[in-house]
């Protein structure tokens, strides 16, 4: 990634006054940009902790552009998914992540690729940050064989190495995450498991079961509650006796983090991951974030909240805009540069869409494969007793 940006910024340096599309790119020497700057970040509320994440963080130009790119790709990808869904090219269920990009980008920046991550159904962002290409994500949404789960999983069931999905049942992934953390501890590999859930899932019984086990056995599990204020159509006040989700772990320490600021998320995740890795046991992070779309594509998202509220968050608190403004005001990048990135991303998403809409569907023979793991192929009953399908694995 770094080399790509070096290439781009070098290329921009060499070009003088050449028209690129309708934008004139002026000569900008690399020296004009600040390569590193320090930013104040919001103080995190703490529970059961003496000290928390730092109040200042450093960001390099490269890191900033990387964050911008990652978040913008997620944004464009989700908007493209919205478009494809409305055209009925994507069917079934589709839960979009736009508005929450800073969470996925910030978390990934603070953990290693060898760490583990599991989340619920609003998973497209994490699928991307965990290393799956936009192509494979969109092809999975359209149900084609080039999709990351071979077209058989769909929106809620995308997986990658060290990324365990993508889970449809609310809260079911949390005990799984605790289990993965146990495996990490058992294998002594210094890895952690980041286990995400939402404000709606925070009221599920199995979450508390997982909390207890993780704390009892000091598992390296980083529980993250992505609080986007609404569990489907129910606001947090109407669903929870306590909306301080970072305190819900009770005997587990917790941090409440501004989930719209990617730097805040990064620092908090670093702090929390360090807590887990040094054997202090599990910790909860509550990321306060917001989703622009409704719960899913069948939810317009305006019957339980006002358009003004959504607009306000978009204009005052958008994660991508926040980062962009920070970088521009510190002279870390130029408006043209961001535009270039946008154009590139648009093309990337378009190409991915082209692939996703033209790739072929998985063959019928694939339908029943991988039900079991067995050697001899298994006969599976089809839609009536005389239709037998074959299941190989």
């Amino acid at each position: 990634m770094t080399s790509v940006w070096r290439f781009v910024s070098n290329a921009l340096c060499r070009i003088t006054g050449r028209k690129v599309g309708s934008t004139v790119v002026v000569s900008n020497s690399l020296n004009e940009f600040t390569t590193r700057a320090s930013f104040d970040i919001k103080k995190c509320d703490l529970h059961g902790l003496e000290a928390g994440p730092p109040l200042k963080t450093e960001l390099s130009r490269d890191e900033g552009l990387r964050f911008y790119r990652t978040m913008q790709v997620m944004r464009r990808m989700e908007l493209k998914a919205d478009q494809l869904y409305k055209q009925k090219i994507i069917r079934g269920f589709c839960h979009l992540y736009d508005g929450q990009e800073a969470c996925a980008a910030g978390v990934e920046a603070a953990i290693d690729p060898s760490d583990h991550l599991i989340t619920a159904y609003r998973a497209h962002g994490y699928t991307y940050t965990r290393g799956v290409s936009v192509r494979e994500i969109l092809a999975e949404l359209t149900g084609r064989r080039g999709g990351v789960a071979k077209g058989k999983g769909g929106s809620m069931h995308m997986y990658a190495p060290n990324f365990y999905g993508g889970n449809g049942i609310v809260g079911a992934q949390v005990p799984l995450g605790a289990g993965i953390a146990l495996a990490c501890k058992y294998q002594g590999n210094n890895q952690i498991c980041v286990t995400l859930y939402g404000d709606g899932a925070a009221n599920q019984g199995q979450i508390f079961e997982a909390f207890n086990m993780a704390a009892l056995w000091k598992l390296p599990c980083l529980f993250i509650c992505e609080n986007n204020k609404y569990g489907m159509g129910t606001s947090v006040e109407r669903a929870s006796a306590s909306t301080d989700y970072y305190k819900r772990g009770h005997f587990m320490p917790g941090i409440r983090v501004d989930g719209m600021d990617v730097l805040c998320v990064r620092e908090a995740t670093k702090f929390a991951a360090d807590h887990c890795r040094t054997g202090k046991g599990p910790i909860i992070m509550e990321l306060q974030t917001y989703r622009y779309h409704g719960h899913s594509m069948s939810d317009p998202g305006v019957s339980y909240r006002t358009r003004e509220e959504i607009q306000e968050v978009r204009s005052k608190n958008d994660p991508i805009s926040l980062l962009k403004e920070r970088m521009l005001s510190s002279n870390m990048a130029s408006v043209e540069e961001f535009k270039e990135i946008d154009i590139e991303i648009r093309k990337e998403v378009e190409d991915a869409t082209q692939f996703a809409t033209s790739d072929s569907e998985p063959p019928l023979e694939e339908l029943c494969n991988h039900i079991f793991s067995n050697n001899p192929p298994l006969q599976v009953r089809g839609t009536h007793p005389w239709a037998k399908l074959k299941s190989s694995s």
Partner: protein
Amino acid sequence: MAAAARFLIRGANSKLPIAVVGSGAHCSFGSTFLKLSLNCNSGIKTQRRHAAHFTFQPDPVPTQFGPTQKMNLFQSVTSALDNTLANDPTAVIFGEDVAFGGVFRCTVGLRDKYGKDRVFNTPLCEQGIVGFGIGVAVAGATAIAEIQFADYIFPAFDQIVNEAAKYRYRSGDLFDCGNLTIRAPWGCVGHGSLYHSQSPEAFFAHAPGLKVVIPRGPVQAKGLLLSCIADKNPCIFFEPKIMYRAAVEQVPVESYTIPLSQAEVLQEGSDVTLVAWGTQVHVLREVANLAQEKLGVSCELIDLQTILPWDVETVCKKWSNELGGG
């Protein structure tokens, strides 16, 4: 699952060459069906949807329950709940999102009409909802709990099977949660995939103490739901979600009940007995017509309605009649 042949034929069947099979030989009957479905399955093209072929066949207008009104399935459920809240002052309805009307509009208007202490939302916790419902029922109030999709009923499985089903028996009839009715949208729609399509009645069919009921249409739904609510045993009422809007019938406005554990013979026949419930009843209606038309086979169609305890008498009597027994 009922032994049900589900066809994916979309009206092209008249052009298919089909050998006429006389009644009797089971194998040739089967292989002809196989040929029919193979023909339509071959050469799957991208993006053309073959699934979810479903035509609702309405019942004739009931005359014995008073004046009727045109209602679809979710409206007939609302009507049943409305009747219940009006006639039973202890009745309460709760579940996820029921206050604004529910994700399938089954509880629209009830909170405004009866108050927020009788129709209220619960947080996202199925095990909690059912456990809580059992408590409400044991204490004497009529509890109508909604599980948002039958696919989500599994966290509550322990409460249903271990607590609700066994309460009366283990307390020697001192306590019971007969006032509990659990409602859940059920069955496939075509795009629901893993977690919005399940039909879990078989899991509950082995828990004595429970009643499991599935209607085939709005008239049945209202009558059966009212029977479940009135029944002194904990009942699970599954509502075929594909029919919420698609099924429209003339439904009686007043309260009425349809007896539980009584299967209904929808069509008399002499060669084969087809048993189904919910959505499949309509598929089998088409099957029975097709079989008569194409193969000259006379099918008996039975809607089981109550899965547990099921009407063994009706089904077996029909079956033994076919075998020529007494």
